[in-house]
């Protein structure tokens, strides 16, 4: 007797692509091949429509109004918060603060959580593969408070050396701030293990999930981190919006980040009482359209299933890694044990900038430069790399087009 096999429907990338209007664009007479998703992602129609619908039928300032539109807008905004909480598996929506993005979230933690207790000689620990947004805020603090910035090294493959990270956790470490996934190398950090190492020593942890949430399931309670952040625009959502998850007890103990309206309960010139969390950290009228557009982005991803999306992207990564490995003179930078669908590479005798221009002529969008990770580029001895990063709407054919484009580069440069 045959057992019925329920097979999961195959990932239909053609159908997915139809949801993204911009993918029909032609660039320089050729179809757009958008491989710059680590920089920002394209938006599905449901997100674009949600933003338009908000302005067409719900627009009003939120939280303070007593009228109908304000109630609609507030509900939509708070529903989005609930959605983000579930997306990250936070215990409570009060633990979700909306920010402009991951960069602002990191600055918030630096200012409101770390700075108040930071003394001269105290330590901040990050890794060598961080994005500037997870370096500079700490440098600013370091210089202000005469603290020490420690950096856990990465090996030649692009993996953080855990033993070294452990050694750097000291009795004076006030925070470990680490990327979940490296935007420049694609390395997926073993953040759960890192959080464990830190927590055992009483060190709080901030995880920068900007490059992680579009590609893998994140459970902040399972991770055990104190803070987790991401940016909406990398998650198929609008720009100017992001979220910071913070454990309730942390957020409650922290002073505000920005002062203004909404983050207060009462104001007089003598005394102002701050609002409860998360509102304490949401001063002023927020990017309402952004938050409202973020909800359908999360739903869209959920509809496809992060497992299916991750598997699709992984197939693309494998195909691209193999194909690029055959290109003469091409060296892939970042060959960590576990990677997300990002490939950084250099081509002998050709500057990444020239690679980018030639690929652009073929309709291919990649990123060239230091990817806001200059220290990491220095570590790998390159001034810049070319980076192709894949998303849920990219195809195997696009990988082939990229390889053809690289062949053209070699032709032009006679390499």
């Amino acid at each position, binding site marked *: 007797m045959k057992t019925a096999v329920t097979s999961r429907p195959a990932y239909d990338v053609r159908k997915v692509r139809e949801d993204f209007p911009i993918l029909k664009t032609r660039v*320089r*007479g050729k179809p757009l091949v958008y491989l710059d998703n680590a920089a920002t992602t394209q938006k599905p129609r449901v997100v674009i429509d949600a933003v338009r619908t908000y302005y067409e039928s719900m627009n009003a300032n939120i939280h303070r109004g007593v009228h109908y539109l304000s109630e609609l807008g507030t509900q939509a905004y708070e529903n989005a918060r609930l959605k983000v909480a579930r997306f990250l598996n936070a215990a409570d929506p009060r633990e979700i603060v909306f920010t402009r993005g991951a960069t602002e979230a990191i600055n918030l933690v630096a200012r409101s959580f770390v700075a108040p207790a930071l003394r001269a000689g105290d330590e901040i620990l990050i890794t060598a593969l961080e994005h500037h947004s997870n370096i500079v805020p700490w440098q600013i603090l370091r210089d202000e408070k005469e603290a020490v910035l420690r950096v856990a090294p990465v090996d030649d493959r692009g993996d953080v050396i855990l033993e070294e990270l452990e050694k750097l956790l000291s009795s004076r470490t006030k925070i470990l701030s680490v990327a979940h996934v490296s935007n420049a190398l694609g390395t997926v950090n073993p953040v759960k293990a890192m959080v464990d190492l830190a927590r055992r020593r009483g060190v709080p942890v901030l995880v920068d999930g900007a490059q992680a949430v579009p590609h893998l399931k994140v459970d902040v309670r399972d991770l055990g981190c104190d803070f987790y952040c991401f940016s909406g625009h990398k998650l198929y959502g609008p720009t100017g919006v992001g979220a910071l998850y913070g454990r309730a007890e942390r957020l409650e103990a922290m002073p505000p980040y920005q002062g203004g309206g909404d983050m207060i309960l009462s104001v007089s010139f003598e005394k102002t009482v701050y609002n409860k969390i998360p509102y304490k950290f949401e001063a002023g009228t927020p990017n309402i359209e952004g938050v409202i557009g973020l909800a359908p982005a999360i739903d869209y991803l959920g509809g496809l299933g992060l497992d299916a999306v991750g598997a699709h992207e992984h197939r693309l990564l494998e195909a691209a890694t193999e194909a690029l490995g055959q290109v003469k003179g091409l060296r892939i930078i970042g060959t960590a044990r576990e990677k997300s669908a990002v490939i950084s590479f250099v081509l002998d*005798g*050709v*500057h*990444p*900038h*020239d690679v980018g*221009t*030639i690929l652009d*002529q073929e309709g291919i969008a990649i990123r*060239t*430069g*230091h990817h806001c990770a*200059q220290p990491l580029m220095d570590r790998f001895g390159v*001034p*810049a790399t070319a980076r192709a990063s894949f998303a849920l709407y990219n195809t195997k054919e696009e990988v082939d087009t990229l390889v053809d484009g690289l062949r053209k580069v070699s032709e*032009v*440069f*006679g390499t």
Partner: protein
Amino acid sequence: MSDLSDLYQEMILDHYKAPRNFGALPEANRVAHGDNPLCGDKVAVTVKVDGDRIRDIRFKGAGCAISTASASLMTETVKGKTRQEAQELFEKFHKMVTGGGNGGDDLGKLEVFSGVSEFPVRVKCASLAWHTLKAALEGSKETVSTE
């Protein structure tokens, strides 16, 4: 529609692979640095100025094909010219690469960069060496950037 061959002409590729006047100039009396960190182009221009004339000029650095070739062709063109002539060449060159040239200016070999105006993103690469030269001749100490 602009063609790649408008930008990556043979002469440019030649000067990229084998840049002229590349290296140190021990007897230099003017030096300036240029850096476009967002692209990854760096150049250092060293000049031996004798009275009003550019006796010798070299450059060092690392960057894309456009910035390297531009530096190479620049040094070839300005060697032996007066500072005034070099300044005029800079202005004509800049006009050409930003699409303001009228084709009538005799820029000789430098005309190979006329295609850059079709690729606005690369204008800064082509002009980095020239801005750096200007800074060297003016005795400016600040690192130049065209970003």
